[in-house]
């Protein structure tokens, strides 16, 4: 969750109180799951890799459990044990660099979600081998958005907009009863420039793209979405994947994994899951929209072509 800006628009009489509670919940989750906080449950779990298990809160346990479910569903396109690769590249930190092939091969051996040993009864998780480590970056923001929603609803809020570092969760409808209009970032332009909009009520809208965190060497862009099978930034032909779903944790996991899976596998996966829709943008500026969004998505940028399905 490092480096995100949280923006909450909360409407209603109880807005101030509800917002305060929501912010407390955010820092609670970050303190449990951040790999950048030394006392977090994830840091402790990683330190005990190959040695013993770590007893986890319900929050952290359920997020890891969900990550493993998605690893299975996506045949390892999403893999929470990617941390050694993320750390090796250091994208977004002052240590970012292109590692050698040997280094990547070395670290890639540590990446395998099947080595996450879950014990639900004891609420413990252990990593099988030493030096393995978990990074929940691909899914923790989604979980946080879902939890913020719970807090707001419990505090009698029926209309709110959560923006967690680009992950949008529209709660209810606008105070005037109309739907929320959500802009879909143009992956080839500066932030705030959209390729189009969708209008939603009570939905999570999450986008993964190669344009948020990256560095460029010799004209080649190295971004932060790694393919767990290669150890390199994913180059499957998509430059942006947006998932519209009821739960943000699903949107977060699916936007990352479909980005890595590529267009045809990604579309197939999304169309097999009920209540989930997607907008995919390919390298050659083609936009693909699943049937559930067909009448909703409004394209506003003419540089892109809309591929009917």
């Amino acid at each position, binding site marked *: *969750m*490092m*480096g*995100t*800006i*949280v*923006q*909450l*628009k*909360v*409407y*209603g*009489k109880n*807005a*101030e109180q509800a*917002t305060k509670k929501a*912010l407390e919940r*955010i*820092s609670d989750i*970050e303190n449990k799951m951040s790999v*950048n906080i030394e006392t977090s449950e994830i840091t402790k779990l990683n330190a005990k890799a190959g040695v013993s298990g770590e007893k986890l809160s319900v929050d952290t346990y359920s997020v890891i459990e969900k990550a493993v479910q998605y690893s299975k569903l996506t045949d390892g396109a999403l893999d929470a044990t990617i941390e050694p690769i993320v750390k090796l590249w250091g994208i*977004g930190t*002052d240590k970012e660099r292109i590692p050698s092939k040997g280094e990547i091969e070395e670290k890639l051996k540590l990446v395998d979600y099947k080595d996450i040993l879950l014990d639900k009864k004891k609420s413990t998780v252990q990593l099988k081998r030493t030096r393995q480590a978990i990074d929940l970056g691909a899914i923790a923001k989604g979980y946080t958005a879902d939890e913020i929603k719970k807090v707001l609803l419990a505090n009698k809020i029926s*209309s709110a*907009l959560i*923006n967690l*570092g*680009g*992950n*949008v969760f*529209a709660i209810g409808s*606008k*105070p005037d009863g109309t739907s*929320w*209009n*959500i*802009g*879909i*970032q143009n992956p080839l332009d*500066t*932030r*705030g420039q*959209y390729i189009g*909009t969708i209008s939603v009520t009570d939905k999570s*809208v*999450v*986008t993964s*793209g190669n344009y*948020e*965190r990256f560095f460029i060497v010799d004209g080649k862009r190295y971004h932060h979405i790694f393919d767990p099978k290669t150890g390199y930034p994913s180059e499957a032909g998509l430059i942006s994947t*947006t998932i519209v779903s009821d739960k943000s944790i699903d949107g977060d996991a699916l936007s990352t994994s479909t980005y890595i899976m590529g267009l045809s596998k990604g579309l197939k996966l999304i169309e097999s899951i009920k209540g989930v829709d997607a907008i995919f943008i390919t390298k050659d500026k083609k936009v693909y929209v699943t049937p559930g969004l067909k009448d909703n998505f409004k394209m506003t940028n003419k540089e892109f072509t809309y591929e009917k399905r």
Partner: protein
Amino acid sequence: MKKGDKIVGIVILVIVVVSLCAALIYKTSIKGTEKIAIIKSDGKVIKTIDLNKVVEPLEFTIKAANGHYNTILVKHNAISIKDADCLHKECVKSGVISEPGGIIVCLPHKLMISIQGNQVKQNSGIDAGTF
């Protein structure tokens, strides 16, 4: 503000800087004629400028507590961060903001610039954007 708004809602807009890195320009669907730029350092307001009243371009530097700096450029109805010594210069890349609702953030230096104005909602506007 419409009459009904007062009854329906206290609107709260909160921006929380969770931790390091990056910056953001964020446009909400607010438009107005009055344009007050608010510059906050580490959560405290350190300067407010009515952008509507700016005639001559103005440049100044804000030092963060950790010794780092951001150079801010103000023009008529526009404000931007011209230079900074943060790692990725995301705040500089954010470009110029000129409408109420626009925000530039430099997370490493805990600096935030936002524009406030008459909060008249645009019906056709975009409420939020993914990124």
